């Protein structure tokens, strides 16, 4: 809980500073844009957070976006599939990949970093091959209006991706913090052996986290594809896994596993997007974008360590 408060304060300060320096920060356009990208990035970051809680990692998310985007565009525009079939298919792909990742990690005992690093290379290559390295677009036609609306529409003035993020976050909050599965997830992250000795199928728990992350990647993948409206297989989604990892870590997930909260991940995502926004609004050269993000994540983690070490340790 303390971690969430700390990062919320940091988020608030950043917002306040930006708003004072440039009032355009608080304009309706800027805020809805911000909400939109927070939604887009938040959904898959939650999935990545779950994987990180098990002590794992998923580096293949960005490449999975490229693969999903290319397949979605081709299914709709070239193979002329009905929109719902295309959407189901594009959801099924990352879920299947998650299942494969989970199986390789738990059954074959390959390290998550290696499995998903191979995924990063493999899916990017596949996306480029399938698309013949051509940019695939969705055009401006109206046949798949429902999917388009999910990515670009509004609900009561709030961008749909943000609404979807809130729904996902609420559901996942219950899953992580109130369900049996969530408790198992935290237990596996903290001590997989002891969890197994408690008669729990830890391999299924870990695999399920990759599958869940795959499902959320699928949702994000559809939204991202329509958000950009065209998918360039060599660059679509590049580095997005790192945004997700950074958000999860800022939000209190430990890469050693066992720590993390949904609210923290959502606030972490918001913080990263506000930072990008701040770079634009304060006239900082956009080439420094990544540098600013890296510096803030580092400072955030250092500050967290510092606060932790100052807490009095309880004696037995």
């Amino acid at each position: 809980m303390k971690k969430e408060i700390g990062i919320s304060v940091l988020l608030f300060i950043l917002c306040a500073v930006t708003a004072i320096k440039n009032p355009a920060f608080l304009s309706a356009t800027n805020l809805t844009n911000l909400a939109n990208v927070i939604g887009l990035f938040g959904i898959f970051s939650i999935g990545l957070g779950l994987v990180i809680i098990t002590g794992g990692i998923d580096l293949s998310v960005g490449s999975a976006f490229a693969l999903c985007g290319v397949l979605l565009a081709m299914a709709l525009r070239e193979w002329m599939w009905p929109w719902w079939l295309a959407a189901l298919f594009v959801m099924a792909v990352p879920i299947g990949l998650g299942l494969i990742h989970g199986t390789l990690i738990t059954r074959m005992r390959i390290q998550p970093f290696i499995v998903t690093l191979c995924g990063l290379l493999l899916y990017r290559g596949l996306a480029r091959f399938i698309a013949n390295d051509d940019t695939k677009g969705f055009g401006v036609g109206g046949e798949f209006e429902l999917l388009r609306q999910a990515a670009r529409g509004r609900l009561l003035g709030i961008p749909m991706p943000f609404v979807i993020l809130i729904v996902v976050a609420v559901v996942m909050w219950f899953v992580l913090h109130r369900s049996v599965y969530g408790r198992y997830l935290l237990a596996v992250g903290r001590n997989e052996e002891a969890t197994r000795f408690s008669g729990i199928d830890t391999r299924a728990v870990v695999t399920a986290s990759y599958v869940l992350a795959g499902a959320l990647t699928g949702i994000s993948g559809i939204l991202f594809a329509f958000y950009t409206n065209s998918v360039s297989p060599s660059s679509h989604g590049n580095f997005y896994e790192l945004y997700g990892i950074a958000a999860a870590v800022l939000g209190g997930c430990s890469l050693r596993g066992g720590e993390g909260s949904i609210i923290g991940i959502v606030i972490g995502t918001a913080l990263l997007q506000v930072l990008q926004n701040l770079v634009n609004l304060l006239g900082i050269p956009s080439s420094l974008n990544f540098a600013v993000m890296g510096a803030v994540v580092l400072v955030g983690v250092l500050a967290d360590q510092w606060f932790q070490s100052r807490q009095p340790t309880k004696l037995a």
Partner: protein
Amino acid sequence: MSSTPLLAMRGIAKRFPGVVALDRVSLEVAGGEVVALCGENGAGKSTLMKILGGVYQPDEGEILLDGRPVRITNVIDAMRLGVAFIHQELNVLDNLDVAANVYLGREPRLRWLPLIDRRTIHANTAPLLKRLGLDIPTTARLDRLSLAQQQMVEIAKALSLDARLIILDEPTSSLTLTETERLLALIGELRAQGVSLVYISHRLGEVHRCADRVVVLRDGKNAGELARDEISHDRIVKLMVGRDIKSLYVESTATKTPAYLKVRDMRSSRYPKKRVSFDASRGEILGFAGLVGAGRSEMAKAMVGLDPRGGGQITLGDETLSIRQPRDAKARGIYLVPEDRRAEGLVVRMSVRENVTLPSLHRFTAFRLISRARERKAADEQIASLGIKTPSAEALVMNLSGGNQQKVVLGKWLSMSPKVMILDEPTRGVDVGAKAEIYRLMRELAARGNVILMISSDMEEILHMSDRVAVMHEGEITGILERQDCTEENVMTLAVGRGAAASQPTFVA
């Protein structure tokens, strides 16, 4: 003592926020003397030794070596003064070889190049190993050695530093019976060579064997001393707890239903060619003795489905069970309290509540969500019935003492309904008070009709608690001793693999 003692610690006080860990404690050790330092967990033994080893600074008091006051501000000071501390958790690098470990941090260099002079360190290490009677090459990697051998390497390191005083903190807690014997013999030899030792142990049998004098601490104060001819089990315990405790061990009152649990052809991936078969009665405590590595823990893991390549046939009453995964054993009421409670028994960064409910979490759900109130109730019940000393059910398990942690592991399984409890080293690292409570609990469980399989390397525990003792050697049961045949000698004979006058296991079909 007439002559100047090698070590004199006088009026040592140490306070931590909110706790007085040591309150004017004194300790003297003469040259070539073995002093056993006893006390319950939290009595201040470790703090006192950490002060001597330079880990902590005392708030008051003085330390004299050979009658001269010394200041020990860090571990290097302690080493230079000839004080070596061998911790319970060994400080060895298991990816390096023996000589590299012995010379760690003070490697001699070649004359012309800043590289380690490997020839010298190996040449100097070999005679040390010989002195310890350790028959291993100096080039052996530590991860190839047994725990006992790794411990010997630490002692070799101490000797190479010309240590005059060696502190051994619970040195036998992970050793087998024979290894313990060898260590005790070695302590005798070191004493004869003029080395002084401080021996910290909960195992009073060993203390009795090797100590010249016993110093007992209680609640951070000197509780008393016993000279060689005064040392007895009861006297030490009395000083430790400050009162007479009724005998540590309780006698069995359980009525037994024979051959309730039948285990046939149990195999483990460690000994794939060996098979273990035995029967146990309801109400019985069947002890499993043997050397570490005899395959006892492996058999236990195979029984509850934790060994994917192990398994065998288990019959409970008239029912033959099929146990392929841990959850199958769990569903049948066969529970394992594992040997290494911090690694296997507990999620130490979770609360007592979360640990107690972990194996049976589904019982505490409503509409698929966990009810913390119900969890809390179950945890509070275990805290009360087992007497777990914790500020609340929400305290993190890592903040509890060893004995209370062990009770949490027991609570996990007792909150369900056990039929067979397999307890692997149930009292390792547990203080006398908690030990007595765990023994009483085991008797109670047996009296309620449970089968208890108790794996233990503590000879006293094996002899006093078991109704029968199964002795294992290299993956097989070499004999099952009836109560009247349970003697240390019989157990040892079987443990090293020699058939004794014991009855070989016979089965009624």
